[in-house]
């Protein structure tokens, strides 16, 4: 029988529609890492126990994260004939109330209610019109967002390949294989100006062209989901909430770079169990559906993907160190050149891209490079996945177009710092990123402007600090992180990061000397001779901290500086 993707799509859509218009209630429990940390498993247990006790029929399944992480555990419910209602801050007691008040008596508990979704014209369930129910996506956290790669997150069951297909999934792969050449795809990527999302912001199309022209098979794609960045959780979020999107991106990349007969590796840190388990399931289901392996979708394109685990090591997020880790060695960076596209993992041509970068590719193939390039700023195209944490009312994951200001995300969407306090400092871009003062709030989020200000967007972590934050002490924590995580290969980084941490330790105890402070400011220059970004960027916290909060650093000296 010839391969019939249309039939697979039709079946998936019919199944999804049946879920939106069910005969028995459908319950979804937010089980991303934040749902887990908020007690998701206890909520699921409470729901099932309550349903059983009352003899009620309902299906309970897991979703990933909606991004409103502060409101986890988030539970959404579709009752027969009703739109989908979302509830937040659900505890086991709340779960009991959802059953007794909403399922049994039809009264949605107002204190838990977040909003509803439903629009028959887009195939997303019963209409909200005339129900008086507020639209979930009109909430301040969601209104500002442009959800490209998080659009399915918290909506679909990440372990059900049909849910992804019903939302357009694997349509880009079908289009690519049967309607486009590899060159066409890389041209679209070029038009899109997609830049790598792992922190370095390198143009993706250029990397793809290098690999396209390299000899093979085999050629390899490494999807970097190591995400050791303290304060960033968007890679984990995508892997645990919509793993098929990332996987489709990797398969498309294999096709686009003429890596047929080659292989992709999805690299995740040991211990990130939800992303690991969900990606493992996704890979297995993609094989079963004919989207991976021999003759994908009945074509002559063959490509494999395997999950690979790294031990705990921040530097293994660096692309050449990642290759060492895939080979099972210490995650220490290699010399460049040769670059990975010429000499990569096991000496074969390779591309390494971040989870987010791969995740954009299905949408770009589906809607075109021009569409993507129409979003964002002149030089930073598409969306930013900002991970907000710290002193902010609604911490979580916000997918916003580049060019939106920090203030819009932090104050408008996330509610600003809690009452009674004022915003003092932002720490962005992870431990190798930097600090920004409150006066930088009107800065647009982009790759280049934030770097010029001494911070960086990096992979998306934004830690908000109120006026209680001791900047010197926070710098010490970042310096300690960088010292612990220096892989030790290059001595300027190995010794320099430790010196910085030690000096900052003394500054926090008011035991620093002027000479040390000056030394800490120049150590970074020496560390730039290291092989990778860990050494190049480790000075960022103290440099930017000193730039904006000089007085606090000087207050850490034993004796006042004579001026």
């Amino acid at each position, binding site marked *: 029988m010839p391969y019939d993707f249309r039939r697979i799509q039709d079946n998936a859509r019919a199944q999804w529609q049946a879920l939106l218009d069910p005969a028995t209630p459908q319950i979804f429990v937010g089980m991303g*890492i*934040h749902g*887990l*940390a*908020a007690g998701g498993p206890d909520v699921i247990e409470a729901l099932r126990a309550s349903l059983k006790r009352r003899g009620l029929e309902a299906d309970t399944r897991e979703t990933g994260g909606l991004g409103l*992480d*502060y409101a*986890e555990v988030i539970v959404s419910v579709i009752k027969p004939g009703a739109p989908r209602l979302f509830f937040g801050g659900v505890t086991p007691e709340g779960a009991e109330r959802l059953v007794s008040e909403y399922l049994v008596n039809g009264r949605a508990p107002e204190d838990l209610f977040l909003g509803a979704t439903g629009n028959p014209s887009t195939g997303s369930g019963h209409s909200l019109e005339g129900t008086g129910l507020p639209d979930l996506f009109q909430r301040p956290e969601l209104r500002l967002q442009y959800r490209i790669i998080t659009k399915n997150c918290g909506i679909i069951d990440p372990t059900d390949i049909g849910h992804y297909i019903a939302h357009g999934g694997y349509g880009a792969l079908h289009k690519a294989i049967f309607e486009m050449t590899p060159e066409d795809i890389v041209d679209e990527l070029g038009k899109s100006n997609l830049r790598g999302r792992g922190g370095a912001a390198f143009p993706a199309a250029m990397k793809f062209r290098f690999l396209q022209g390299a000899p093979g098979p085999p050629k390899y794609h490494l999807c970097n989901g190591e*995400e*050791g*960045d*303290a*304060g*960033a*959780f968007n890679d*984990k979020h995508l892997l645990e909430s919509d793993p098929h999107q990332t996987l489709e991106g990797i398969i498309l990349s294999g096709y686009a770079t003429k890596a047929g007969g080659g292989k992709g*590796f999805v690299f995740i840190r*040991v*211990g*990130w169990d939800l992303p690991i388990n969900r990606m493992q399931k996704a890979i297995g289901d993609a094989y079963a559906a004919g989207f991976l392996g021999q003759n994908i979708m009945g074509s002559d394109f063959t490509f494999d993907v*395997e*999950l*690979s*685990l*790294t*031990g*705990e*090591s*921040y530097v293994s997020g660096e692309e050449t160190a990642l290759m060492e*880790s*895939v*080979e*099972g*060695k*210490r*995650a220490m960076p290699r010399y460049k050149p040769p670059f990975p596209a010429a000499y990569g993992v096991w000496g074969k041509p390779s591309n390494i891209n971040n989870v987010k970068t791969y995740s954009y590719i299905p949408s770009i193939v589906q809607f075109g490079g021009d569409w993507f390039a129409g979003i964002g700023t002149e030089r930073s195209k598409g969306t930013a996945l900002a*991970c*907000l*944490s*710290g*002193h902010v009312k609604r*911490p*979580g*994951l916000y997918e916003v177009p580049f060019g939106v200001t920090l203030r819009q995300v932090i104050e408008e969407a996330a509610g600003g710092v809690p009452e009674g306090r004022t915003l003092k400092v932002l*720490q962005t871009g992870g*431990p190798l990123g930097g600090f920004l003062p409150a006066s930088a709030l009107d800065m647009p989020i982009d790759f280049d402007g934030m770097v010029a200000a001494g911070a960086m967007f990096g992979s998306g*972590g934004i*830690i908000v*600090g109120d006026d209680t*934050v001791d900047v010197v*002490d*926070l710098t010490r*924590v*970042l310096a300690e*992180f960088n010292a*612990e*995580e220096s*892989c030790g290969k290059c001595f300027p980084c190995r010794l320099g990061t430790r010196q910085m941490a030690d000096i900052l330790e003394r500054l926090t105890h008011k035991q620093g000397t002027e000479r040390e402070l000056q030394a800490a400011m120049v150590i970074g220059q020496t560390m730039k001779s290291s092989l990778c970004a860990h050494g190049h960027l480790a000075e960022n916290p103290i440099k930017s901290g000193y730039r904006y909060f000089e007085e606090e650093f000087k207050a850490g000296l034993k004796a006042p500086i004579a001026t």
Partner: protein
Amino acid sequence: MDADLRAILEGQTRTVTVLSSLIAIQEKLSFLPPAAISAVAELTDASVNEVYSVATFYTHFRFSPPGEHQIELCWGPSCHVLLAPRLRRIAEEFTGMGEDGTTSDNKYTLRGLECAGACALAPVGKVDGKLYGRMTEDKLKQILTDLNGRKAS
């Protein structure tokens, strides 16, 4: 080679490397016994030195069994600004240890995490593998007290 180790090593379903083999063993045994190093060397055709260098590089590998209860607290920047150091002090007082390690009676292992990945619900802690967001001093004391009925102060 020890039959248990052989079963673990040969049961790997992904590409076999030194690292994958060490991860597989620790996953099953919760630490790397001395025999694990030579077993991995034998299987992967690496030297004992090479295996040991990988095992000592990645911070999650351990060479002695963990305590009966594991207390892990995140010290990353998001958790730090939300007063993770106070939680750490409570755990240190409870275990009587000033640094990461296992108590001499093998009852508790205390470990700092650089990032537990749930930064939006900082501060984050993990006790016996269960992840807790928005940890408070009282909540941690309660959890620790529940571990053995001894009250944490």
